């Protein structure tokens, strides 16, 4: 319709609007409007308002998720349904699966022969089918040449009537590799035999020049033939056809997994936006991940780790994160008993079987540098075969020099200086490990070579003694390391700039990995160090990482010391705190309860640790809004802490602050405010005005004032409400300034402070300031915690509210003037 513009007069509003919008230049647009609206002042002014609205954003009409950014595309349902016939000869029968790229159907081919096939329908933006098929055609010849019993044949490809590409493949009635192995409880040797067959299939494809690029258990289906597992690799060549697709951003984001690979199985060189240089060794890497999963039940980068990160962070993880050895993953895995049971083995035996050669084989395939991986899938298969035949494998343990080299490479230059101390210590630790390994090997040699037994024994003994001496050194090293890390807790650093914190965070993360990677010394020493590391990580706001570390420490301590040992309980308490700080309340609460119950029986009801657990549990109850339960528990804890530790003790004050918060949330503001004030005064006196705990009290007092102002407003006491608001904003501002300086601009606590200040601005009508601040919080929080973190939703909602209030405020004066001019559009009133 908008084509007929200049000819019809007068133009209707819609056409004129469309014509005006099409003119990019502002002056020309005005000229057009003046011309078309000559003699029609009402229309002219209305067009002005419409265009103004057109160029302005609108919070409701432009929601953040406009066009359903996270939703599945609807195009599909216009075409896909059982009974539909594709390309005149494939009748869709039953939907087998749904992926980011499209859906897979069981279909019936009607000509030239009648048979069941698998049809994959690809969803693309309009006009892109050609690109896919062109890219695919290049590989088609080669794919047609593949003829292997363990590779599903590709039968046809083309476009549907509506222009979407489709692929037709041999129908494989199998289940994904890992599902098959677990449901049939295949033992490790059985799994390895299956894996060798898969390697050989991949080798066949590589010889024909085809790279799969998206190998993963769901692309390796296993059928049972006479009770024997037969693997079939599917989708060869399809990933290539889909790479580089000009997908809309939405598609890239939602179907990330199927477009450029599946994150967990992706080789580091694939993990960039222009990964052109990908060769067969990317498939070797993916096979390494598959083997890892067959052994341990998990992938090196777990689904949970991937889910919590942003796209660019995820790619960085894939490129840089070193995989823990399968055996160490097994020893830290919570689900180990079931993992072991699925492999028909005791957990301890499984760990022993995997430790050593299988670790080395897997890590060789998973090398970040592809020249360190197996050169071919068949050499990978041969090494696995050697393991099964109890021959020496070609893969070996990483050398100390290699480890250090990797360590340095992973650090940016500016971080290296800060890492030197750590580096030196780790070198010592690794040296010790190698010493122990050498001693063990020497012992083996002594057993087998009995002709010069005495000589061997003396040698082994000497080496063992040296190793033990080194172990002592390592323990010392651990202590030093531990104290270095303990010093990193920001609560204990008086002045620390932001960049240093970054370095520290990186070093800590690194230390966690190294600690896990090298099986050094006494596991209990490692657990002790993990505890220290975890606490430092918590201090830096890295709760997710801290959880990993505490989980491992807990596993070790439970196994070595028993579940009721005070040290085990200490770790459990830390772990519960970490879960809570990470927003996983369902996990933290029962853990707090368990720890408290155990501490009561083993340490007694008034032991400081027991009181700590009481306080923590009460705080968890408070976190889930069960104030009626939290308040009495806090009251009891406060009384006991006052009696055993004194009124001015920091723990006593912490409970006092918590109790005040529980009062506040329970609606007892009148009790909360004085208790907050008392806590704040005592903390200022004991800890100084800038101490984090003092700041927390100040923050809480401000929040109580906010609530107080609400109550005052509800009761009609306007002056009281306003003075409380002013006080709240003043306190929040002071807190925020100090938190920024002390914790850095994106620490969760700083962000929480910003959110609160923005709310105070909103409540006191300073809307522009409020909106700007909310926007800043949201941006930083999404970058830091990801869009799905529980803390992010409330901020989004707050921002939306502030924007709406702001837009209403802005529009209020206009309403008055237009009301007098245009009485005709007066609303008819409430119905």
């Amino acid at each position, binding site marked *: *319709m*908008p084509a007929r513009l200049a000819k019809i007069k007068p133009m209707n*509003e*819609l056409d004129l*609007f*469309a014509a005006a*919008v*099409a003119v990019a230049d502002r002056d020309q647009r005005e000229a057009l409007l003046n011309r078309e609206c000559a003699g029609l002042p009402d229309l002219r002014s*209305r067009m002005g*308002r*419409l*265009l103004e*609205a*057109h160029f*302005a954003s*609108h919070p*409701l*009409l432009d929601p953040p998720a406009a*066009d*359903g950014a*996270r*939703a*599945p595309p*609807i*195009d599909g*349902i*216009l075409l896909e*349904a059982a*009974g539909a016939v594709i390309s005149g000869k494939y009748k869709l029968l039953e939907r087998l699966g749904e992926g980011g790229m499209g859906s897979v159907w069981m279909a019936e081919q009607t000509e030239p022969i009648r048979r069941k096939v698998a049809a994959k329908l690809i969803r693309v933006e*309009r006009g892109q089918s050609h690109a896919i098929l062109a890219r695919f055609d290049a590989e088609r010849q080669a794919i047609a040449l593949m003829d292997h019993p363990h590779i599903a044949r590709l039968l046809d490809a083309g476009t549907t009537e509506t222009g979407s590409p489709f692929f037709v493949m041999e129908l494989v009635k199998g289940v994904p590799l890992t599902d098959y192995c677990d449901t049939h409880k295949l033992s490790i040797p059985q799994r390895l035999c299956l894996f060798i067959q898969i390697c050989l299939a991949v080798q066949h494809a590589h010889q024909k020049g085809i790279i799969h690029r998206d190998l993963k258990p769901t692309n390796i289906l296993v059928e049972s033939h006479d009770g024997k597992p037969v693997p079939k690799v599917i989708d060869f060549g399809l990933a290539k056809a889909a790479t580089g697709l000009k997908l809309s951003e939405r598609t890239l984001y939602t179907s990330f997994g199927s477009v450029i690979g599946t994150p967990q199985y992706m080789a580091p060189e694939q993990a960039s936006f222009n990964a052109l240089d990908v060769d067969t060794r990317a498939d070797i890497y993916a096979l390494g991940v598959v083997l890892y999963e067959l052994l341990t039940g998990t992938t090196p980068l777990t689904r949970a780790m991937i889910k919590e990160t942003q796209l660019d962070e995820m790619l960085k993880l894939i490129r840089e994160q070193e995989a823990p050895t399968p055996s160490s993953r097994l020893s830290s895995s919570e689900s180990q008993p079931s993992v072991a049971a699925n492999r028909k083995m005791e957990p301890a035996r499984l760990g022993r079987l995997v430790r050593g050669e299988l670790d080395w084989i897997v890590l060789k395939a998973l090398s970040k540098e592809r020249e360190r991986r197996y050169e071919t899938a068949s050499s990978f298969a041969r090494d696995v075969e050697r393991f099964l035949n109890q021959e020496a494998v070609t893969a070996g343990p990483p050398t100390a020099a290699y480890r250090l080299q990797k360590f340095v490479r992973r650090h940016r230059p500016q971080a290296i200086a800060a890492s030197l101390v750590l580096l030196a210590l780790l070198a010592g630790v690794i040296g010790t490990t190698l010493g122990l390994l050498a001693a063990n090997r020497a012992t083996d040699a002594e057993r087998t070579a009995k002709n010069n037994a005495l000589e061997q024994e003396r040698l082994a003994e000497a080496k063992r003694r040296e190793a033990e001496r080194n172990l002592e050194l390592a323990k010392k090293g651990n202590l030093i390391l531990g104290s270095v890390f303990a010093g990193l807790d920001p609560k204990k650093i008086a002045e620390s700039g932001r960049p240093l914190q970054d370095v520290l965070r990186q070093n800590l993360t690194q230390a966690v990995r190294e600690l896990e990677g090298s099986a050094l010394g006494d596991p209990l020493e490692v657990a002790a160090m993990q505890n220290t590391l975890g606490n430092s990580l918590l201090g830096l706001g890295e709760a997710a990482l801290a959880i990993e570390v505490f989980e491992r420490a807990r596993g070790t301590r439970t196994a070595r010391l028993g579940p009721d040992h005070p040290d085990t309980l200490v770790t459990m308490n830390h772990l519960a705190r970490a879960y809570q700080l990470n927003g996983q309340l369902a996990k933290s609460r029962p853990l707090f309860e368990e720890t408290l119950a155990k501490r009561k029986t083993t340490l007694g009801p008034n032991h400081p640790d027991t009181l700590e657990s009481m306080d923590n549990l009460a705080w968890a109850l408070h976190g889930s809004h069960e104030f009626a339960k939290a308040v009495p528990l806090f009251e009891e804890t406060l009384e006991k802490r006052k009696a055993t530790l004194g009124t001015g003790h920091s723990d006593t004050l912490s409970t006092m602050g918590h109790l005040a*918060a529980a009062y*506040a*949330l329970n609606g007892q503001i009148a009790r909360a405010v004085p208790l907050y004030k008392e806590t704040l005064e005592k903390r200022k006196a004991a800890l100084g005005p800038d101490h984090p705990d003092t700041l927390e009290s100040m923050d*809480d007092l401000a*929040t109580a004032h*906010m*609530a107080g102002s*609400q109550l005052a407003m*509800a009761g009609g006491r306007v002056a009281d409400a306003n003075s409380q608001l002013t006080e709240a904003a003043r306190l929040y501002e002071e807190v925020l300034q100090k938190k920024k300086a002390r914790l850095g601009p994106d620490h969760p606590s700083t962000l*929480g402070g910003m*959110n*609160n200040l923005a*709310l105070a601005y*909103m409540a006191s009508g300073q809307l522009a300031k409020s909106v700007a601040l909310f926007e800043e919080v949201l941006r930083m929080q999404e970058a830091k915690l990801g869009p799905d973190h529980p*803390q992010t*939703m*409330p*901020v989004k*909602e*707050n921002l*939306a*509210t502030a924007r*709406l209030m702001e837009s209403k405020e802005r*529009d209020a004066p*206009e*309403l008055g003037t*237009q009301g007098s001019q*245009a009485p005709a*559009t007066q*609303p008819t009133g409430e119905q």
Partner: protein
Amino acid sequence: MTPGELLPQVYDELRKLAAAKLAHEKPGQTLDATALVHEAFLKLGGDRSFASKCDYLKAAALAMRRILVDRARARNAAKRGGGRRVDLESRHLVVPPPDEELEALDEALSKLALEHPHVAGLVQLRFFGGLTLAQSAAVLEISERTADSWWAYGRAWLSVNLKEN
């Protein structure tokens, strides 16, 4: 079946799905219209012809609009008792989102439909049905360029109307 005849069935299915979704979500959660519409379509057995799919999508958009607006009304009514409430949490304060806005949009859209029924239909498909512009164009059997200018006009019209009422 015309969209009108289809509506009761679609509405019923969508409402059931929406209720089930909301039961498992946090309070304050918004509904993902696209996902719901997609799911309801599969539940209803997946009709074959292109025309009947378009009818379905038109009916679904109207049904989603009713469901969302009804929900906003119910929540508004519940809120009116105590006025606007700020939930107090020691670490993060939450202000409930304003449902009045959705009600106002619903009213404005009805007014737009009196003047420009096609434009209102397009807005309904996009805003409540969760369709993209291209999808809406296909359903309404208009060119994407036309859909683009209708959407821009409808959006500006509503924006002005919301402001001035």
